[in-house]
């Protein structure tokens, strides 16, 4: 899966998890930009990504993610 495809899938996931169709998923996007992106929703987001991409993240990886760019980099390593 190339990077644009990853972003497209992520856009669907973000819209689903945050129940908000207008979210634009960019590399710079982070928790402070999105209403309702708290620690619990973060876990729901990560678990949904794990399910859709059929990958698993380690606890420390999840802790280190600063923005969507980090997330995409990690997905590319894992899948």
């Amino acid at each position: 899966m190339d990077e644009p495809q990853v972003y497209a899938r992520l856009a669907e996931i973000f819209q689903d998890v945050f129940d908000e169709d207008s979210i634009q998923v960019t590399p710079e996007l982070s928790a402070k930009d999105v209403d309702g992106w708290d620690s619990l929703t973060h876990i729901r987001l990560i678990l949904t990504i794990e399910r859709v991409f059929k990958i698993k993240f380690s606890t420390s990886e999840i802790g280190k993610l600063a923005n969507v760019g980090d997330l995409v980099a990690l997905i590319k390593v894992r899948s």
Partner: protein
Amino acid sequence: MNPLYTELQWLLRTPQEFSARLKALANSPGPLGRDVQALALPALDLNQLTKLAKALDKVREDGKSLNPLTPFRLAVLSNSTIDMILPALVASAARHGIALEVIQPFYDQVAQEALTPDSKVNSSKPDAVLLALDYRALPLKLSLGNAGASSAIVQGVIGYLQALRNGIKTNSNAVCIFQTFAPPAEALFGSLDRALPGTLRSLIDGINRELAEFVLGSGDVLLDVSALAETIGLADWHNTQLWNMGKFAFSVELIPLYADHVGRILAGIRGKSRKVLVLDLDNTVWGGVIGDDGLEGIQIAQGDARGEAHLAVQRLALDLRQRGIVLAVSSKNTDEVARAPFEKHPEMLLKLDHIAVFQANWNDKATNIQAIAEELSVGLDSIVFLDDNPVERELVRRLLPQVAVPELPEEPAYYARTLAAAGYFEAISFANEDLKRADFYGDNARRVKLQRQVGGVDAYLASLDMTITFQPFDATGRARIVQLINKSNQYNLTTRRYTDPEVAAAENDPEVFTLQVRLADIFGDNGMISVVICRPAEAGAWEIDTWLMSCRVLGRKVEHIVLREVLEHARAAGVYQLIGTYRPTDRNKLVVDHYAKLGFSKVAAEESGLTRWELHVQGAEPESAPIKVISQGFATDKEASRA
């Protein structure tokens, strides 16, 4: 993990338009109970459950009614993170007819909330309090090999739980829902853990046993989380990474399953568990089709893998009956043919005595299920309908949405397990009266008269998006043609059997008109479902030598479309009259009026019951139906496609 449980496979998959329908709630004035329940019915994942709960909050904020859902206030006390679980509970409760409001106190304040009279939980006057505790909430000190100390620990825990209960009872008089405790997957010694007093496993075993006994006597309610976790597998139930990261007591993937189980319990408390099981017969209660395969041909024997799968369905039905569930039958069959296995087949576990209402006829099943509900004086929301045929399931769902209709897997070996996993008959208590309930309805397999047909059948047929394909006999289709000719008993006008060479001869004889018919619909390709052979009779007439059809596609006006096709070719061949014959056998009573229904005139009736019929080709205009027609491979014919 086993997807039957993790993906709630007895439920339909979530439809594409889920989000759009969710948004439509905001613009609808209500009451919205039915719409919300319909949205909750499929196997929603955690994100979808969360969205539905959010939409429900909005409906409440807007002051709209959730009738006819039953209101319920539930407080949840827990030592773990339940923030993701609560929305799932609200959405899953709607699936079970409950408009749920949840009350969540601060994290890990179990004792304070239960014991303080004006705590958030007690002052909110809940209908029930769910004690969603897991083993990490308990003071479980290993006391290896020490029976006395172990017993004291178990008693201490039970005493703690009883104190919580007494606090809640005194302060708010709510029903308490206790959870059993899922033991961790990790062993200390290994197998010895179960036997040796004072290991974590034997302590938890002891607590679960004592808790269950205590709940049975106290009138409280038990949610057997331990059994649920064992069904899934403890290693999958407990996700240690998630516990460490966010104190999730069990795997987040399993929240939809857990929430559905809570929903069943709440429905049980409100007296909403189902009471009647309506069974299809062919390929559900036994393998095969009784009308075609006969008493000797159906698969129901011990020692036969397919037969045992269906016996398991019968055994489950009988066990359910023993605990008070009423059994009924709805089958597309001639009544006496459908009753024969119950009366004569030695391997059948179910007997007519076990069946309260026995509806075997050729009407649509929605009409029959409604008649069963009226006869038993129960609501449609008390009924579960088990049928292997997706078309019948969808029809009943569409026309009688209150009836619970489990999806079934391809493999019959999993039918009984799927029905059990769906938990339609979840009960929170068991009384002696339950033992007698099934008898109360007088199990005499009575047949009830049908009232008028449930509306909307035609619209449903149109929604099936059927395509019918007509071809003359050819070498590719011959094996299946021969099979149908030699196997079909019920929808068979003349029951003439032909060998492969005889069919090949008809195929190659330009004087003989042959038709093989295939039908596809939204559920897939039904394959070849009808065969017709017309032979030249007197000048300008065709004698319908053979006309048969698979009973699976009955009630879809396929026979009308077949006649239209025959007429088309008859006209092209300059034939002015069709001659039909009904030759009675002990199996084909179904088609005694076949020609009358299609507009033929009766010209002769013999003592044997044989009747002869004629139809003038000119001016014959059989009923049409919403089926797309493809006609191909005919010598005289262009590749034609007509809508």
